């Protein structure tokens, strides 16, 4: 399984549902097991990414926050 990030999305400033939709679209281009990193500032995105990961089976491997910016790392299900 690759441990490096395949794709990074900068979705800072965008309100939901844009971070989820853009991430779903971007993941479509990835191979199973690839990691994608997403930066967002919408506080609602924390719950949304957790729920989306649970519903779709794409694993949310990391959620962190620094200075009002959230960072999510997701692994495409395989």
């Amino acid at each position, binding site marked *: 399984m690759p441990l490096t990030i395949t794709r990074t999305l900068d979705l800072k400033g965008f*309100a939901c549902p844009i971070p989820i*939709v853009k991430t*779903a679209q971007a993941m479509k281009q990835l191979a199973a097991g690839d990691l994608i990193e997403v930066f967002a500032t919408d506080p609602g995105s924390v719950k949304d990414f957790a729920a989306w990961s649970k519903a779709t089976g794409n694993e949310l491997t990391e959620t962190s926050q620094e200075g009002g910016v959230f960072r999510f790392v997701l692994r495409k299900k395989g």
Partner: protein
Amino acid sequence: MPARVVVLGGGVGGTLAVNLIAKGLKRDAKVTLVDRTGMHVYQPGFLYVALDQANALWLARDERSLLRKEVDLVIDDATKVDPVARTVTLRRGGTLAYDHLVLATGARLDREAVPGYGGTHDFYSLEGAQRLREELRRFKGGRVLVGVAGIPYKCPPAPVEFVLMLDQYLRDRGIRSKSEIRLLSPLNRAFPVESASKMVQPIMARKGIELATFFNVESVDEGAHTVTSIEGETIEYDLLVLVPPHRGAQVVEESGLTDAAGWIPTDRGTLQHQRHEGIYAIGDATDLPISKSGSTAHFEAPVVASRIASVVRGTAPMAAYEGRVMCFLEIGEGRATTLRFDYKHPPVPPQPSRLWHWAKWAFNRAYWVTVPQGRVG
């Protein structure tokens, strides 16, 4: 010599901006509005046309009748903007030179972006709303799916309002018991704003309107009558209604003034183009991280008008846009709430009431004599 101000696009934002600029600068400016059709269309009315509650004639007026007499109206298609020479090229010939340019070029519908979209129904154009109205008149029951085929799109509350109004329409026609209504949502709730979702979901549940969660439309198969999501789910339908994907206008895209999706890189506060001094963008055309809606354009137009007036008069421009947006959200049963927010403050919708429902109704009717002229702030 008076300053030459050109505004492209006679929608809510362009019409209000050009009137405010003409009013503010009087003889200090020569103000021109370029509009492709010369007709002003009230887009929030499409929903009512589709559901047979309004006649299409109510939605369109002659643009000239909404403009101050000092404004020159040019009915033509702008095909090219040259930000270096400061000119706008028109399709039927000729160019307009400008000192200040306002891009109020809106969004266009990009149905080809969804594989298989074909003749899928929508209520995002007058033709689309009229075609859907005919289809609904013929509808005898079945499964109706309503969703969004791409983001960003105009008027985020529209799909929720549509399913609630459709429920009532099918009840009035006596075919609700033979029909299913399902809202396809990109999230795990009916509406992006969580507090508004909490208000609307119990009402949807009570009315038997279903919700397909995390359903981001990827493709349509009209032959098989199915729609498939990026998440991998496929659902059959009898009638599919989608908000088509949006992108920026061709003229700004082909002039190299946009990002890859056709939106104009716009300063959040000054509304000036991020790369070109003297060019401003308002309304659906911008890349700002806020809702695309008439109200956004309505709040942005005075900022641009004031900044241009200051520059022309040689004073420091002070007006700044703070991201203000205001939407009504009809939640059914004759009640509505409002979503008011800006860059710094998320919406906190008040309890739904009949008052907001009537406020929306009154606004729809008063629009023509208030908004384009700048009579309501």
